[in-house]
């Protein structure tokens, strides 16, 4: 019972944050609401037993990525987004398409997964087991992603470095 209540509460928080992300005009508000979403998602993970995932969610997403966002927003001093006349396509096709797609998916999910339910912490993702999996079954993907991250870092440096501050490199 408490389980369901907690789930509903944080689920509602999630949705509220997501919706707030949409309605807020100012990117920093959107960012913060996204942080809220992530935090409450971490709680959901905890409910599902994925404690390590939850922790990493907080540390990486809320603590690093979103901080990066906020940082950039501050750096560029992004103000209210002006309501320019965008493309009609996005509204004419995108929104209906999104609705149709999500409705279909939702229907299928309900159809297929049925009423199977999980207890709190159904599948304990303890750090030890996760680590074991990560370094045995998923070693190659792990290494590949590490390389990916390395490349991403270099790319970020190249892109963000000031054009006149670097000699010879193409302006990005």
């Amino acid at each position, binding site marked *: 019972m408490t389980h369901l209540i907690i789930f509903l509460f944080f689920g509602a928080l999630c949705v509220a944050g997501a919706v707030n992300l949409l309605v807020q005009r100012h990117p920093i508000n959107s960012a913060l609401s996204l942080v809220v979403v992530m935090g409450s998602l971490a709680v959901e993970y905890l409910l599902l037993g994925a404690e*390590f995932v939850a922790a990493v969610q907080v540390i990486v997403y809320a603590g690093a990525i979103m901080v990066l966002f*906020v940082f950039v*927003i*501050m750096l560029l001093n992004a103000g209210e987004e002006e309501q320019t006349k965008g493309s009609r396509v996005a509204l004419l096709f995108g929104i209906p398409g999104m609705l149709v797609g999500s409705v279909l998916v939702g229907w299928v999910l309900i159809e297929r997964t049925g009423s199977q339910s999980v207890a709190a912490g159904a599948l304990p993702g303890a*750090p030890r087991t996760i680590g074991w999996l990560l370094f045995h079954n998923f070693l190659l993907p792990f290494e590949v992603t590490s390389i990916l991250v390395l490349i991403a870092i270099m790319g970020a440096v190249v892109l963000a470095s000031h054009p006149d501050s670097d000699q010879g490199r193409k302006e990005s």
Partner: protein
Amino acid sequence: MTITTFIIVSFVKTVLALFVLLTAVAYTVWLERKVVGHMQNRWGPTRVGPFGLLQPLADGVKFLFKEDLTPPHVYKPLYIAAPIIAVMCALTSIAVIPVGNWVTIGSLNIPLQITDVNIGLLIILGVTSLGVYGVALAGWSSNSKYSLLGGLRASAQMISYEISLGLSLVGVLMLTGSFSLRDIVDAQSGTFWGFVPRWNIFYGGQFIAFFIYLMSAYAETNRIPFDLPEAETELVAGYHTEYSAMKFAMFFMAEYANMITVAAVASLLFLGGWHGWVFGPPILRALLPVFWFVLRIFGFLFVYIWVRGTLPRFRYDQLMAFGWKFLLPLAIANLVVTALVVALRA
């Protein structure tokens, strides 16, 4: 124990912890002023109470009754939210920090810790990383160039040093094989070679990691020599330039609470937590570890103040260079070495 007792006990522990912590914060401020004063050949606070011991109380009252003015042109919601976030993050992390062994009151056996989760350390890291928001938002929302620069510096600095901080902890984690702080502390019980305490800083050969952690912690808490975000000489008071009264007090509290937290973590991870000479009747046996633990934290705080009293301030580029080009590689190297050691021991 039943759910109700659990809730009651938790509540009691929380209140207790909060009270102690806030008091500690207040008296850390007093201590700092005193020590720095003596270092600079002055007395520090002396008027209020003996040795100015009631000074923190007076300060609190002052903060409470000061006019809480909000400058115009600030982005209000965040301007108000920022200090709250900061102080909340600072106080939350205390929840997973164990301060001592189990104590037995009547029938129930209570750990001297608000809650013992097996990913405690991760939670601490996460919460501290969330602490950045307070600073950043404060700097940004108060819509003044000094604040903005302060906030930018603060957030950049925190993100940068968080990495080496986390990496410096990994060595210990590998030695222990657990995220639970209690397990980590238990793993450091006893001695080797007969007399040397089995602390990670000695036994695990983690002293490099320890110093990395120390420096990163200074940066994390925006303390001298890394207090660029609130460098008075450059940008009036950094991210909390525009703050006053209780809001400013919150930042203040947050900073000192963070100091205490990192000190606690350092002593838990590297200096064997509460292990120490235990003797006497059961009640004393229960409380002595707490004493040892508090002693260690006190030592750390003293070092903080000592450093503040002696070291000059870094330049910003030096700060970044130091973090990325020195501490980070060092932490990684330490990590590799530790991994080898662990592998060889196994």
